[in-house]
């Protein structure tokens, strides 16, 4: 690894300011992805700014009106074990359980997982299906952006130098709702070939009042299948609806061929898995 200097900020303000003043400085979250990049010489920062020394960036809270708040520094393990997440957004625990292995989940953070902008990462599809927003904090400024606007390309995002992903907000779901995350991988919990998350919510009459579908591994960024909402909300869901959304997901997918799978295979599987994910959420929400 190339030499870099190391800085421990005491507050978000101090961290942002330091990052602003040092153009080549990088944020250190859990370090799990960053250290691999450093070892391979893919990045050569002047400084690492360890945001884990800032108090208050790891917390999981619930508010009946605002929904769920997750700190940028909560570890994958926290997400997996949190009773609040189990109760209100179990799909996030499901996604966490499919990320790598315990020693990685104990170090990696959800903020780092999102900020790394790896198109196959497991949290982003689930967060998209949940209609989550990200709080991006810089000196004197906070902006809240819908998660799907965050990603711009392979490993690229809209974060400016000096901006930190401090928080993830997930609005409350209808009481009768359920989510499913399906990860297609060659070896259990290895990188996703395709990841599909679906969340559906119903009113008492069984009419759909919430729908979200997120995809990973099938384009340069995670994708939001926006049509899911238009097709499902206000409807009693049938096989035809599910097929229509799966076709739309397939049409949006623009995958590449790499050592893990061919583009054709991914494109085929995104259709199959979107159907399964929707059916899974439907069955769970309706108690079938």
């Amino acid at each position, binding site marked *: 690894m190339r030499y870099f200097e190391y800085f421990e900020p005491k507050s978000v303000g101090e961290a942002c300011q330091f990052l602003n003043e040092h153009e080549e400085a990088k944020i250190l979250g859990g370090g799990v992805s960053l250290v691999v990049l450093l070892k391979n010489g893919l990045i050569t920062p002047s400084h690492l700014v360890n945001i884990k020394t800032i108090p208050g960036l790891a917390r999981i809270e619930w508010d009946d009106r605002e929904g769920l708040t997750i700190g940028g520094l909560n570890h994958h393990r926290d997400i997996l074990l949190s009773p609040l997440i189990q109760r209100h957004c179990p799909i996030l625990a499901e996604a966490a359980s499919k990320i790598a292995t*315990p020693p990685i989940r104990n170090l990696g953070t959800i903020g780092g997982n999102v900020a790394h902008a790896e198109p196959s990462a497991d949290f982003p599809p689930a967060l998209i299906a949940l209609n989550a927003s990200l709080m991006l904090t810089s000196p004197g400024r906070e902006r809240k952006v819908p998660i799907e606007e965050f990603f711009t390309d392979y490993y690229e995002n809209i974060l400016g130098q000096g901006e930190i992903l401090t928080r993830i907000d997930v609005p409350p779901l209808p009481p009768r709702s359920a989510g499913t995350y399906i990860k297609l991988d060659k070896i259990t919990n290895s990188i996703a070939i395709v990841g599909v998350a679906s969340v559906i919510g119903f009113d008492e009459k069984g009419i759909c009042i919430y729908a979200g579908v997120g995809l990973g591994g099938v384009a340069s960024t995670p994708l939001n299948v926006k049509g899911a909402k238009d097709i499902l909300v206000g409807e009693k869901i049938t096989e035809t609806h599910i097929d229509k959304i799966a076709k739309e997901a397939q049409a949006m997918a623009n995958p590449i061929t790499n050592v893990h799978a061919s583009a054709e295979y991914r494109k085929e599987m995104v259709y199959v898995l979107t159907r399964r994910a929707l059916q899974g959420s439907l069955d769970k929400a309706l108690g079938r």
Partner: protein
Amino acid sequence: MVKQEIQLDVNGKSYSISVFPQETLLEVLRENLGLIGTKEGCSEGECGVCTVLLDGLPVRSCLLLAVDVRGGKITTIEGLSEKGVLHPIQKAFIEHGAIQCGFCTPGMILSAKALLDGNPFPSEEEIRIGLSGNLCRCTGYIKIFKAVQGAAL
């Protein structure tokens, strides 16, 4: 290049050492402290032979910068036996023939320790998940699972 003074608590002993910010905990354990029970394999988080416990939880020492340990308590395989008496998990590994070349064993035993500390009677499924971060190229895993079950009894 500036070295930094850090305090490391390893196996209940406190060490004061100077390290470069880019040194991993794995490098410091092996090179500075001579604790070579922690192994280096892939160096990219995949294989698990570098696994140590940080405040009781398994982590990859190849991906953790030494400066980032910041007061956490590290347990390596050297910290398990007491006064020359092997830890029950170590004994179980020997009794069940769960060791062949031994390269994966330190990490495997530490993952097993973290698992059993949190869940004294794990099911086989829970053992498989608990040890999923540790690859073994020799044993075929079955004897390792048996050893962990044996240690739990």
